């Protein structure tokens, strides 16, 4: 089916998602559950990946700046900017697309093929809003926290690797991460991750919500959710970078 068909259906779904909730207390409760499921449960993987990426960036920067004319504090600066500008927003979003995107698509897809969504509709519940809105709120609220957490952990990982390998001293690294710091980079990164979180949740939910058939199709919708979320993250990364940094 055509691209425009999917875009149209995606926006129709969003229109239903943002309808007035039946009961705020239930949506609040569901949102908290989703914060746990989509946000807090993702912290482990974000920590592991950020520490190692921070470490690798530090070592790579050190080897690429092996020149007596270049100060070693540039290693801290490079790690800081790499983490803040790109890794903690875009790469973390791509990782989350794999983790929570597939989770959302398979959960909603299974509900669709086992008629649980029909059961909600029969009761008079706006199933799109009930199932998707708490996930959007949870991810949009929690993703910036994950991003900040990733920045902190990644820069710390870089410092640990730098002093362990002996390519930089603590003093120079700390000086480097403070040198020529532009606070807007943090804002830029947070704006990006909020947009990415919205894209991951809604695209994955779309694929799950319109899944048809059986378990095989649920698996397919889950794969499509990850692939399409990743593509849109990369596309919006380009658009937002051009809009915010140029």
């Amino acid at each position: 089916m055509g691209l425009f068909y999917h875009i149209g259906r995606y926006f129709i779904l969003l229109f239903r998602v943002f309808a007035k909730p039946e009961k705020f207390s239930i949506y609040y409760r569901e949102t908290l559950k989703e914060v746990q499921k989509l946000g807090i449960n993702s912290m482990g993987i974000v920590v592991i990946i950020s520490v190692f990426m921070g470490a690798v960036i530090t070592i790579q920067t050190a080897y690429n700046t092996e020149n007596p004319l270049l100060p070693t504090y540039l290693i801290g600066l490079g790690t800081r900017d790499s983490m803040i500008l790109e890794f903690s927003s875009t790469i973390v979003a791509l990782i989350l697309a794999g983790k929570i995107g597939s989770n959302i698509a398979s959960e909603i897809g299974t509900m669709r093929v086992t008629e649980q969504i029909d059961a909600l509709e029969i009761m008079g519940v706006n199933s799109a809003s009930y199932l998707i809105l708490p996930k959007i709120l949870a991810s949009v609220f929690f993703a910036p926290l994950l991003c900040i957490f990733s920045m902190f952990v990644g820069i710390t990982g870089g410092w640990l690797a730098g002093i362990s390998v002996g390519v930089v001293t603590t003093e120079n690294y700390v000086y480097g991460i403070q040198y020529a710091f532009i606070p807007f980079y943090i804002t830029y990164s947070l704006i990006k991750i909020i947009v990415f979180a919205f894209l991951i949740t809604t695209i994955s939910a779309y694929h799950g919500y319109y899944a048809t058939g059986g378990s095989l199709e649920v698996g397919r919708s889950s794969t499509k959710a990850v692939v399409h979320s990743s593509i849109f993250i990369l596309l919006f990364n380009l658009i937002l970078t051009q809009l915010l940094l140029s």
Partner: protein
Amino acid sequence: MIEVKNLSKSFSTAQVLKKVNVIFEKGKTNLIIGQSGSGKTVLLKSIVGLHEVDEGKIVYDNVVFNELNFKEKKEMRKQIGMLFQGGALFDSATVEENVMYPLDMFTEMTKSQKRDRANECLKRVNIINANNLYPAEISGGMKKRVAIARAIALNPKYLFCDEPNSGLDPQTAIVIDDLIKEITEEYNMTTIVNTHDMNSVMEIGDKVVFIYKGEKWWEGSKDEIFETNNEELNKFIFASSLSQEIRKLKGNI
């Protein structure tokens, strides 16, 4: 009472329902029977509004359901209970939470009131000491009974059951059939059951509608079903019945 007038429904080029006219009576168990692929599930799902119909009217006690707007339909649906083929219980919720769900969503009851009502419904379907179990931890028959308990939690006026006996052993199937009939009479509901099980027809069928190739081929009572000369219906009864007695009755086919 639910009245279906000239209902037609197609998917792409395939016309599944062709100008179906039928009245489902209040306080009775109305059965839709037919072969797989005859259109009976599409008919049921069209009546409850899960499918948009191409033409025709679905009238719930003088209210044309398919002409209501989204908000009005939502209100109307609070009077509808439905039992799905697989139960459609929410996997992430316990038995009690499943039954309490419509109460949580649409009533201002206190937690203890909701719990009492849920327990009352569960007791009505003979589910005891299973409140904290998850759907994955209970049997198929229990799932169906929990789904019935959830469907009646808000005292609906209309009950729809899609193949309530599928996947159940004959003994459990009889329990579910009896339960549907008892609840229909007790709550004075309009109940529509979609089935191809002739035992259900004999057990609970106050009114029977036979759908064949998307058309209403025959309607009548379960007693009249043995007097009909409708060839397709007779073939269906003979083929779908395991009862030797029924086979003998229809043995001349």
